[in-house]
């Protein structure tokens, strides 16, 4: 019988900022979009990479569109820690999320978040991990959803 997985030792304080804004978006809508986009991206990062419990990894992709949920789960060896077994503790060090936005008629219509996450895993294997790349999101009736990803993960 395995011991229950320990929670992450601490949550990293993300550095979240707006990058390039193409087109006009009011300040109010820009801030609101950034909050919602960051929430969707953070949900994935937090549950996929900063959680020791990989049994619920499918939930990490809750902010992804229906098609992307399936594809991300299929790619979970990169899109999560699923490929690293026996993790007892995760020590995050940095997380940067920079979001470029497309504005049309004063409203945000599309966004691309560029991410970089660094953390250390402790357990059966001690690993230094860097995750980087970009995810793009569009706004639909369900809110901001990830519609594409291009992610790389290096493990040392």
């Amino acid at each position, binding site marked *: 019988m395995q011991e229950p997985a320990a929670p992450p030792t601490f949550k990293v304080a993300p550095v979240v900022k707006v990058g390039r804004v193409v087109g006009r978006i009011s300040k109010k809508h820009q801030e609101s979009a950034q909050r919602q986009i960051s929430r969707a991206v953070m949900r994935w990062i937090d549950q996929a990479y900063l959680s020791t419990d990989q049994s619920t990894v499918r939930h990490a992709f809750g902010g992804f569109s229906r098609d992307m949920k399936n594809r991300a789960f299929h790619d979970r060896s*990169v899109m999560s820690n699923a490929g690293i077994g026996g993790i007892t503790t995760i020590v995050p060090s940095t997380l940067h999320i920079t979001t470029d936005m497309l504005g049309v008629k004063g409203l945000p219509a599309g966004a691309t978040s560029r991410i970089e996450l660094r953390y250390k895993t402790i357990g059966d294997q001690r690993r230094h991990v860097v995750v980087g790349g970009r995810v793009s999101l569009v706004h639909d009736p369900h809110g901001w959803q990830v*519609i594409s990803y291009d992610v790389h993960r*290096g493990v040392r």
Partner: protein
Amino acid sequence: MKKLLRILVLTVVLAVLGLTVPDSTVRPAEMALVKINTASAVDSGGQDMLWILMVGSDARPGENMTRSRGDALQLVGINTRTGAAAAIGVPRDSWVDIPGFGYSKINASMVYGGPQLLGRTIGNLVGVQPQYVFVTRFQSFINMVNAIGGVDVQNPTPFSDDVLHRDPFPRGKIHLKGYSAMAFSRIRHSLPGGDFDRSRNQERVMKAIVTKIVQRADQPGFLAHGVTTVMKNLDTNLGPGELYRLAEVAAHVVPSKITSCVVQGSIGDIAGQSVVRPYVSAARRYGNDARRDGTIKHC
């Protein structure tokens, strides 16, 4: 005594060895080999293949772009799972049955029934119906190529044109800005294969555009700029979110997995018009090949 001496010598040797042999701690790394895994995907609405008809309209300033003749016709199929893409070029003089209007040159189809009818006509020829029809005009095409910083194409034959481009395009890898890319895609009289060679040049330019998009997709704001440029220069009824998704589809194409063929045919003369009678079976084979995995096996 002899045994005692041997033990003493052995002890000294072990002690010296203990001082000189390094312990088992790992030395600081001076090199590292790190395995990088990648994952890439784009939402295609649950369909593996996405078909887009790209049309270069020959509308002059002031003319309705979507009710003019289609000068450049390329049906593009993208496999959103593998990043493979197939481009099927159709000569504009192809003599085909236009639904509801009878036989005519294929480029007249947009005059009769707009982009939808042109999409159906080409879909019937190739055996695959496009989901999207993108129509642009000369100046808009120039603007779009300039917006991505020009393109690099591999030109197999030097050629020029007295009207469109007097400076010859040299053989080999050449960089084309917007106007030159437009001229490179339009010139046919000075090419040995005429309309067929022109279609091949259109495919070269299209592949170069996709390559540029893929190269620059990671640059901050590039896709957003791209969508804005497209919205200004393309006739489309799609919303910006849908265009953003299609921009990502283009950015996920793997340039080395692009295959292309031009539908060949016999040259003829009908009612005083020079026409191409397209080889329909070859066109269907390209469509069938690409439908499976986004790749045309051979032309």
